[in-house]
């Protein structure tokens, strides 16, 4: 009977109708009653699977939606501004951002090694989400008490939990619902998610401007007793984000765990193997001159981007506090432009990469990225900064897509995977030097000068790319 059920399942997967299966199996000599029972059993299993997929689609969607709102309300730019208000030092903000990036890489490395050995239970992913929510409450409270150690503790927990939440979640989603079985909203989450984040970023900015840092006194009468307290905008926005992340983690708990975790050796030996493999990968990738160049420029550009991104929000907040929509809303406005621009970038890049070639597009993207910090130095007005941000984001997407297309030509699939994993590890090294150093220079001289330096450094990657084009001018790359 089992073999009959398997046969029915196999034929269903290959797209045969129940009637066709029944006829074919009847010809093979199976009893009609057995065939009918196997077909109805299989149909029951199918409808059960569909029902489960519908429910899971629903909960995944809730989770994605809550997460996107949460990331908008507690945007990294807002976090940097709050840190600056506590620490009053660019160096601390820079160091914090560099260490955060380092911690993210270490955690991602650890999680990937762990996931190679064991399946992360759905409950644990949900718990990591809940922990991330609570860590935001710690960050908001630290801002209220002006406590730097508490703020850093909250952000360390947030970084660890967000990686432990994000990496296994992506794997869970792709393993549970195939792309073609996802609901329309879940399929298009990249677009809807950006729009949702943009709206919540704006709402977060408005809330923080409506209730300033010193707090807005609110007076109420509770059962005839006068009650007054202070409301802080960042506390409201971050607590809202925290609640959404907690709910999002809770939504995951409705997704049923499947199968048992397979044990394949110890985590320490896997980490050691991962390290060894990474070093071998670095050696393999750096043996090709062109890949080495892409790796070095990618790592330097990544570090410079981290440096300037750490301070864009702070600069906008301070320079335009009185003008436009208000301090935090101005920051939100500029970064909404960036989010919307990221929707356009891939299309522009793919359209032009065929016409102009990949290396020229890489050079173009890099130069567009350099425009943003240079505009902060030469023409720090809201309108110019908004335009420059737009160009910078489009440039960064163009450079990214061009790099991917270039790697498709230059390396095989395994080599490409190795390249990206090596880049994600290697970028940490210059980041740990460039970001705190740039931040220290901002403390000694000025932030504007750091933007100028970063812009010039980004633009100076161009001659390196030009050299490669000259070297390879015989083949169109």
């Amino acid at each position, binding site marked *: 009977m089992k073999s009959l059920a398997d046969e029915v399942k196999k034929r269903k997967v290959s797209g045969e109708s129940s009637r066709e299966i029944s006829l074919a199996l009847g010809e093979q000599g199976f009893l009609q009653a057995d065939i009918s029972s196997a077909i109805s059993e299989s149909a029951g299993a199918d409808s059960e699977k569909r029902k489960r997929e519908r429910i899971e689609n629903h909960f995944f969607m809730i989770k994605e939606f809550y997460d996107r709102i949460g990331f908008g309300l507690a945007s990294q730019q807002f976090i940097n501004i709050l840190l600056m208000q506590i620490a*009053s030092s660019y160096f601390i903000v820079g160091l914090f951002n560099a260490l955060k990036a380092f911690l993210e890489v270490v955690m991602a490395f650890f999680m990937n090694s762990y996931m190679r050995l064991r399946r992360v239970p759905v409950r644990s992913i949900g718990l990591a989400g809940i922990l991330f929510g609570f860590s935001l409450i710690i960050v908001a409270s630290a801002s209220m008490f002006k406590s730097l150690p508490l703020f850093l503790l909250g952000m360390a927990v947030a970084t660890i939990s967000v990686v432990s939440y994000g990496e296994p979640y992506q794997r869970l989603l792709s393993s549970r619902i195939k792309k073609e079985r996802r609901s329309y909203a879940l399929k298009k989450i990249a677009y809807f998610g950006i729009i949702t984040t943009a709206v919540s970023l704006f709402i977060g900015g408005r809330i923080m401007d409506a209730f300033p840092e010193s707090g807005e006194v609110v007076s109420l009468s509770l059962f005839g007793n006068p009650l007054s307290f202070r409301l802080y905008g960042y506390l409201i926005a971050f607590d809202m984000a925290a609640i959404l992340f907690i709910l999002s983690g809770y939504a995951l708990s409705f997704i049923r765990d499947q199968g048992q975790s397979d044990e394949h050796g110890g985590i320490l030996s896997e980490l050691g193997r991962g390290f060894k493999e990474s070093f071998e990968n670095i050696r393999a990738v750096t043996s090709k001159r062109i890949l080495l160049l892409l790796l070095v420029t990618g790592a330097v550009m990544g570090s410079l981007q981290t440096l300037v991104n750490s301070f864009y929000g702070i600069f906008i907040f301070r*320079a335009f506090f009185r003008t436009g929509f208000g*301090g935090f809303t101005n920051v939100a406005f500029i970064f909404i432009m960036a989010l919307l621009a990221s929707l356009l970038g891939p299309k522009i890049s793919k359209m032009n990469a065929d016409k102009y070639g990949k290396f020229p597009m890489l050079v173009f993207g890099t*130069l567009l990225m350099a425009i943003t910090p240079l505009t902060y130095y*030469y*023409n720090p007005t809201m309108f110019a900064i908004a335009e420059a941000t737009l160009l910078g984001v489009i440039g960064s997407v163009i450079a990214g897509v061009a790099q991917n297309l270039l790697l498709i030509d230059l390396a095989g699939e395994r080599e490409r995977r190795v390249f990206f994993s090596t880049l994600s590890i290697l970028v940490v090294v210059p980041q740990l030097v460039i970001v705190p150093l740039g931040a220290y220079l901002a403390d000694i001289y000025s932030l504007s000068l750091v933007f100028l330096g970063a812009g010039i450094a980004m633009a100076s990657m161009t001659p390196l790319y030009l050299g490669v084009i000259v070297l390879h001018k015989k083949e169109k790359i």
Partner: protein
Amino acid sequence: MVFKKGRLIFSKRGVSPLIATVLLIAFAVALGAMVMNLGSLYADAGDGEGIQQPNADCSGVAINIYRIEGREQVFYESSGKDIRITFMIENSGLKQIRGVKAIVVGDSRNVLTKDFSQVVDAASVLREALEYDADAYGEIVDIKFIPLIEVAGTPFPCQKMAINAERLPQAN
């Protein structure tokens, strides 16, 4: 590009990578130059918000916050809610200025503005202090200094030459 049966069609051969790069670099530089000058014509001789001002010549006017051992000389001393901000502004331009306008923004979005009218020659330093009420204005978020020049007998702020204090440490 070639003509075929009266129709203009594009040749499949693209431009060489080197020429494409040069073209794209030129395009990026043009875009950058445009963005970096965006709005500057409009803001010239204006108050920074597009409102036209009397024709004033701010060329050669520049100020800096005076630095000692690399530290900007803007400090605060507080006694309760009263804050005293002390600053040293250097006339780093080529012209004499008629003082500076200080703008202090508090986080309650209230703004304290005060003019310090005093002739400061080129390469000279102005040292002044400003009383700030933290209860009325909230915590200090930003401090800006705008050089003043004389136009038609009245002080005129050269907005484009304004500078912001990077930080506001407590006086030792």
